[in-house]
């Protein structure tokens, strides 16, 4: 859709992306999901040798004792500012009450995400995992320098000095100093190359409930989000986009728009027509008064129903092989019982509460300042620079609090950054430009979770054991055509289309996973948990069907197939136990009328999550009463933030299970606001109980992994309650009857 001038962003290292690759039966199964635990352990600490030591790249200690931790990631609500600060503060032995945070500038050398290679950015639930060793080393190095400074001042051996809660002590001489008193002298000390890191038993902050660092500013109106940025003399820009993806401006009559009070300028840019005004309301009124004729000759003009019909037709033909083992078709042919199922998934909008927006200001020296919820800083900086015709060193990024993202703020094309830059360029940089997408722009603007169809077939032997598994998927690749293609797409297979399916942990004697890459003109993107948003539903509902067909308890049946996945097994067992799962009841034909429990378990991004849903289902209505979740994320850095992410995942995903879908009619998006794409509301929210598996493994992420299991747990619970099997999302409840 967006034709922007774009510099090729630096290419993340292939090695980093393929860190979790495994070879299965001759086919390379690409682990875009990686194993964050692996790269966390392998991640080097920052090279602090060329920097002023204190402040260094990650921590600054001021004379007033405040400790500022530099956050290289975007915090869009997942709480990573608190988590990242906890990791550093623990090794530093700082007083939590003195901890502050600041978002890092764009710097792919200092602040890259180890999971992304030489690219700074946030995604894939990697923030904590890729920072774990880095921030521990940064905190430990700063602590060692404070100790060295104290030893020098007091003329005592460093080995006799202790540090606790922001105070450095020498017990024998009864001397002590606060961090602030030592900061300047500490800055003059040599930076230790390999500072000693704590044993887990020595942690004082990690694993404890600490107050979130953003709770105060987010409850008194002082937290500054991207939409709250106010630069002197700034103009607000609202853009008229083509109603169809790929449409371009044919002609513009802006006379009436320019006559609207407050409107300052109207400019045509590659993505549409921008109206600049003194305030948002005037810009919106100006846009309403525009008369734009669109050229749809290159646009996607089909309806989503037509695209879906095309997908189904293509699924009749073999696709590219994502993974295979043995002769799945032959194994199924000789089975006692064969099950087949089809799952369809719609486009989904991210619909973060803060619509997309960004501000760019030109400085007197011809450099630029960008203020936004920056999520892929290295790419955003490069795209802004290219669109403004300057080198990247002339572009400074100022990351703000983001009002949600769920993936949308991280586009490989940095679409809304490019759009803002093109307006600044078209207006000569005379005034700072704040591009504001309205809710309607945000929802109809594309970059959706792809529409996907899965078709599955499996055989059971006389004892109910799986003989073979055939699985064919179609959807538009998120990665093909982006800077990430060379890293993620192997032999035409985009790992993000099949992750969570083709690399299933279930022990299948024979299998074949195939994929078709769709090519419709609807822009698609990762949506909180990416491919797992659909693969987990297909896998976990179908395995439930097989369990019931085998007359087995769904929990026991899964455990029987998960011998090679001990952490997922343990997580599943914990969820079942805490939910009061009763194997007898699960297979009892005389189960509770209209009320049932459903289970699902899934690994994503190196984290393991299992859920048991308790639902009441009757007469075209479903009420989710309770969700019991168990999660294994390695070391739980902030247990309460982890619980919050899982609770929130339920609230976030529930509306996509029950009703959300983006549809196109003749290429035009039909859902444009929260009335037709309604998020979960308070009265629908189930009770969510979260249990954390104790672990000493390196921490992984929890921003996304709570999402995949929600839909299948609910779907399976509806089956338990009613005997009706609902597969496709959103669930079609129209035919649902009581048991």
């Amino acid at each position, binding site marked *: 859709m967006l034709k922007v001038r774009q510099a090729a962003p630096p290419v993340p290292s292939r090695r980093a992306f393929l860190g979790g690759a495994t070879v299965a039966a001759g086919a390379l199964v690409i682990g875009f999901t990686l194993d964050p635990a692996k790269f966390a352990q392998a991640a080097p600490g920052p090279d602090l040798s060329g920097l002023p030591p204190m402040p260094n790249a990650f921590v600054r200690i001021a004379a007033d004792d405040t400790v500022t931790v530099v956050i290289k990631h975007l915090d869009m*609500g997942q709480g990573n500012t608190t988590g990242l600060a906890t990791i550093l503060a623990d090794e530093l032995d700082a007083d939590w009450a003195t901890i502050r945070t600041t978002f890092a500038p764009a710097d792919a050398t200092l602040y890259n995400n180890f999971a992304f290679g030489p690219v700074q950015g946030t995604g894939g639930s990697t923030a904590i995992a890729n920072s774990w060793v880095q921030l521990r080393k940064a905190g430990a190095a700063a602590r060692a320098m404070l100790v060295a400074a104290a030893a020098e001042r007091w003329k005592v051996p460093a080995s006799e000095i202790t540090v606790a809660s922001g105070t450095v002590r020498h017990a024998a001489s009864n001397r002590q100093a606060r961090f602030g008193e030592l900061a300047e002298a500490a800055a003059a000390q040599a930076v230790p190359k390999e500072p000693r890191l704590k044993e887990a038993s020595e942690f004082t902050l990690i694993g404890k409930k600490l107050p979130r660092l953003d709770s105060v500013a987010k409850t008194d*109106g002082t937290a500054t989000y991207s939409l709250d940025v*106010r630069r002197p003399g700034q103009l607000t820009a609202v853009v008229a986009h083509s109603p169809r993806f790929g449409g371009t401006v044919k002609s513009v009559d802006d006379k009436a728009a320019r006559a609207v009070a407050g409107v300052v300028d109207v400019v045509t840019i590659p993505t549409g027509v921008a109206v600049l005004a003194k305030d948002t309301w005037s810009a919106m009124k100006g846009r309403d008064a525009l008369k734009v004729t669109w050229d749809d000759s290159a646009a996607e003009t089909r309806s989503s129903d037509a695209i879906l019909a095309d997908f189904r037709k293509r699924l009749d033909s073999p696709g590219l092989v994502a993974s295979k083992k043995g002769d799945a078709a032959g194994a199924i042919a000789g089975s006692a019982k064969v099950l087949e199922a089809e799952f369809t998934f719609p486009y989904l909008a991210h619909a973060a*509460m803060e619509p997309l927006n960004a501000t760019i200001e030109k400085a007197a020296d011809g450099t630029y300042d960008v203020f936004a919820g920056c999520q892929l800083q290295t790419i955003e900086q490069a795209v802004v620079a290219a669109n403004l015709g300057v080198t990247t060193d002339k572009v400074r990024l100022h990351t703000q609090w983001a009002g949600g993202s769920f993936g949308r703020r991280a586009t490989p094309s940095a679409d809304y950054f490019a759009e803002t830059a093109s307006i600044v360029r078209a207006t000569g940089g005379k005034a700072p430009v704040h591009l504001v997408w309205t809710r309607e722009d945000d929802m109809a603007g594309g970059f959706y979770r792809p529409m996907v169809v899965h078709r599955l077939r499996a055989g059971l032997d006389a004892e109910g054991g799986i003989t073979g598994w055939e699985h064919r998927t179609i959807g538009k690749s998120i990665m093909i055509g982006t800077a990430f293609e060379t890293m993620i797409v192997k032999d035409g297979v985009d790992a993000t289309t099949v992750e969570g399916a083709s690399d299933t942990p279930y022990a299948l004697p024979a299998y074949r996973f195939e994929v078709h890459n769709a090519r419709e003109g609807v822009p698609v993107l990762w949506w909180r948990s990416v491919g797992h948003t659909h693969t987990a539903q297909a896998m976990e509902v179908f395995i439930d069907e097989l369990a019931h067909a085998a007359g087995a308890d769904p929990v026991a049946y899964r455990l029987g197939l998960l011998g090679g996945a001990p952490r997922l097994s343990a997580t599943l067992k914990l969820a079942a136990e805490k939910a009061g799962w009763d194997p007898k009841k699960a297979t009892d034909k005389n189960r509770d009328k209209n009320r049932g429990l459903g289970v699902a378990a899934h690994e994503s991004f190196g984290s393991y999550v299992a859920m048991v849903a308790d639902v009441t289902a009757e007469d075209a209505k479903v009420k989710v009463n309770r969700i019991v979740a168990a999660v294994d994320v390695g070391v739980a850095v902030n247990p309460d933030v982890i619980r919050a992410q899982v609770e*929130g995942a339920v609230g976030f995903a529930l509306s996509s299970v029950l009703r959300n879908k983006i549809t196109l009619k003749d290429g035009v998006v039909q859902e444009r*606001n*929260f009335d037709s794409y309604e998020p979960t509301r*308070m009265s629908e*929210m189930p009770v969510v109980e979260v249990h954390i598996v104790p672990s000493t493994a390196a921490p992984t992420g929890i921003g996304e992994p709570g999402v995949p299991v929600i839909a299948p747990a609910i779907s399976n619970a509806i089956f338990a309650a009613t005997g009706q099997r609902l597969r496709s999302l959103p669930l079609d409840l129209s035919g649902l009857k009581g048991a």
Partner: protein
Amino acid sequence: MLKLTVNGVAHEVDADPEMPLLWALRDHLNQTGTKYGCGIAQCGACTVHLDGQPVRACQTRIGDVGEAKITTIEGVSGKVAEAVRTAWRGLDVVQCGYCQSGQIMSAIGLLSENRKPTDADIDGAMDGNVCRCGTYQRIRAAIHEAARTLA
């Protein structure tokens, strides 16, 4: 020029009387704590108080405000507001936080009228406030907690 009294301070605003209060607050008075979420009264992110009553600022024309006193997240105060803020912080309700100004303004409105709301009362008062991060469980708990401290 229109006169608006926001958080006890009188302001003159040079804008179209049709302009929603939301944009006058954010763009003319630099009170950005009140958020834009949908513009059609479907999300509640812009909730402010007019003479103590919660209203959606996106649906309130500044020409219609008249003498009413406008209170926003930046200025809301008193026993109920303190109890609500304290509960929100104690339970770490926020995630992205973008909707929370509106959630808090609605919760203060509820507790000002009803010191001991039931779960059904909370559903009724809060269903118009969307939280895309899904913090509803903690919002509910925080309202009950605030009610307990106010009792």
